[in-house]
């Protein structure tokens, strides 16, 4: 593992949602630092704020208070166009519920972040082939998401997250709904990515992924607790 400069720096992040009269505090003074190339894993019970923290790191959500700096950019003050470009080029996101675009085929789902980034046609074709081979779904390239099983959809989501070769990969329960065989395949991919020097942040309960981590955090009622350094 090669770690160096800071990839993610979060200080005193707070996130509060207003639901009618009720104020729900999802994150409370969460601070963390992830170096480039580091593999960070966090766990915690449902509703502890894991997904919210991942969303804030990925520029999908904004903290109510606090500061989040990713690859030197302070995301809290940036406009939506900047964040869109940041998510497209810097972040690969694997959602808990896969979130594939139902009107696009498997190959198209993997290709569209690259088409978005205006990559060349040849490059996109080769990359789609390479990524589908990596997740073992070449034979499903022209199928629609609803024609795939949950495990297959998760693998497509992984391939899509890697499409633009982003320096940061965020994964929310990547093995949560999968069978053992598919989970192992996902873990194998994560190991390869770690070897390639990607910065990875994963929210999971899977002990096997926990074993791979350089930094392990625990979230409880919105508060971060470091398990080891």
């Amino acid at each position, binding site marked *: 593992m090669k770690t160096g400069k800071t990839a993610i720096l979060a200080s005193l992040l707070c996130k509060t949602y207003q639901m009618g009269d009720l104020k729900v505090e999802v994150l409370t003074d969460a601070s963390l630092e992830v170096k480039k190339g580091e593999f960070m894993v966090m766990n915690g019970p449902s509703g502890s704020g894991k997904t919210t923290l991942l*969303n804030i790191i*990925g520029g*999908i*959500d*904004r903290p109510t208070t606090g500061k989040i700096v990713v690859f030197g950019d302070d995301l809290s003050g940036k406009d*939506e*166009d900047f964040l*869109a*470009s940041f*998510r*497209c*080029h810097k972040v690969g*996101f694997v*959602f808990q519920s896969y*979130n*594939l*675009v*139902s*009107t*696009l*085929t498997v*190959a*198209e789902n993997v*290709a*569209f*972040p690259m*088409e*978005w*980034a*205006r990559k060349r*046609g040849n490059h*996109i*074709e080769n990359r*789609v082939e390479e990524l589908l081979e990596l997740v073992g779904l070449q034979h499903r*390239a*022209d*199928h*629609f998401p*609803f*024609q795939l099983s949950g495990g297959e959809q998760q693998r497509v989501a992984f391939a*899509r997250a890697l499409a633009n070769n982003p320096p940061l990969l965020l994964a929310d329960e990547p093995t949560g709904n999968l069978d053992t065989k598919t989970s192992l395949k996902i873990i194998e991919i994560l190991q390869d990515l770690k070897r390639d020097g990607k910065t990875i942040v994963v929210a999971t309960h899977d002990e096997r992924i926990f074993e791979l981590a350089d930094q392990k955090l625990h979230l409880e009622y919105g508060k971060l607790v470091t398990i080891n350094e």
Partner: protein
Amino acid sequence: MSETFFPINDLLRRKLQTSLVLISLASCVASTLFLLLFSEKIGFGISLTVEGRLTYGFSIVFSRFIIFGGLLIFVVGSVVVSFMIFVMMSQRVRDIGLMKAAGCPNDLIFGYFMTELLIITFVGCFLGMALGILADFASTSFLINLGIQISQKPINFLLVLLVFVLFFILAVIVGAKPVLDTTRVEPARAISPIYYFGLSRESRFRVVSKSGLTFRLAMRSLFRRKSATIRIVVCLTAVFILVTVAVAGGIIAEQTTRSWVEKAVGRDIILIAHRQMCTEYNLLLSKFCETREDSQLNYTDKRYSIPEDVLNRLVSISGVKDVSARLVLKAQVKEVRNYTFNPETGATIPVGDDRKGESLIVGVEPGKLLSKWFLEGKVLSEGQGFEAMVGDSLAQKIFSVPLMQSMRLFDNDFAVIGVCLDPINNGNVTYVPLKALQSITGIQKSNVVMVEIDPSVNRAEILNQIRANISSVNPEFEVCELNEILDKNVGFLGYIWSVVKFLPLFCLSSASLCLIGYVMLAIAEQRQEFGVLRALGAKPKTVVTIISEQSFIVLLSSYAVGVALGIIITLLILVPKPLVTSYNVLEIAGWLLIAFAAIFVFSLYPATRFAKKPILEIMT
């Protein structure tokens, strides 16, 4: 949960969707009812306005537009209502499948969703009915306050009830179909996305550009909602037919009818006659645009006769292009019965009923007519004796098949060879050769002279010369320009057509609402996907681009078909022998493009609002 509570709870649970369907349904019923009530008033207004004015032929052109417009308005309303209800019930297909899979009996499921359908349809139609009446009342008051002449007759409650019942039945039938269809299929099929997505397998993957990608997403979503897309296209097509008929038809018909009047009266023609005869001739022409009482003028009074000297002097003035003497009088004309032979049965069939009526009789020199009528049949020609050309109103009033019949005038029969549109005396006119009229009446002199001045010469100078010559013969004689009354008649036509063109404005707003409803449904269906796209790097404007592409495709398809059909209907059915100038084409294209752009821009409102929402709000 009781059978009554489930539908109510289900409707309340889907607050956004229920409100959307209710608003759309109510607004469509309201706008349709409003349009029918309002166009009835406009139509009524026109018929009131034209009572005792225009001619039969002109009235026919207007009433065709009003009837066709009313019919289209109803079609548009029906299509919109069926579209909204179909979309609402189609979105319950998956729930029905899940309930079936959980063991719920078919009749219970059908009962649940039919109750839901009945509740929403009744509430929507009722609200629409109330809103429609209110809108009609408000706009009538508004127009009256603006000083626009419009009928204030009470609301036609029979029409209101008819619209309510028809729309209610239509909505229930259309909405029941997807429920019934789904209760019949196996649960596994009903809950499968393939059943309601309609997508199976795509052809081989091809890389596209960024703009190609948004187009691909837009097209796939349109096809995924194939049924709803077809319905919205049909709905907007009907709207565009109505708009085209009203706008293009209105412009073409105005141009055409204006040319009929101008050619019949003659542009830049001057009239020379005795002072009282001039006034009478103006009165006869102004009957087209104003309600006027008949005068008791004795046309055959010798004082009105044009001396031969006047004609000779007029001909000798250089710059006078043509001089046409006319003998104008009023007389009783009688339809002469004719017989036709049926080659199949060998029977002789009588044509005509020996009807009679008073008509303005104009004796003209066939070689110097100066007027070019829009007519059916032939125009009077030189060398022919007892032939007549009748005005459209007279033809309608006392003839069965005028071109097969003759008319009796001063105990002489004249063969009817043409039916012309002429504004004089509201089309109650008969043109016969001057010599024939003189021979049967014994009046040897004309009482009116029409003069055409060469357009290349100084008109004012020539007019002064004519005035000087005429007054030297008889100071009672006057030179009268017909352009003023001609402009009045043409202006009146313009006023009526502007009322007809006013109709599609309301229909356009109803179409905009409908498209906004479709766009909102499209957003609701693609909400999760848009969230994902945004989360993976799409900018807010990309979401607007995808939605606007969908809206544009739907609108363009409807526009192409609607405008083409509208033009065909206008040119082939509504306006006989249309007159279209290149300026008209530009004007029509301009208005239709404005209508297209307005609906398109309005339809993007939900998209622009949606794009501003935070990603997480979209995805949850």
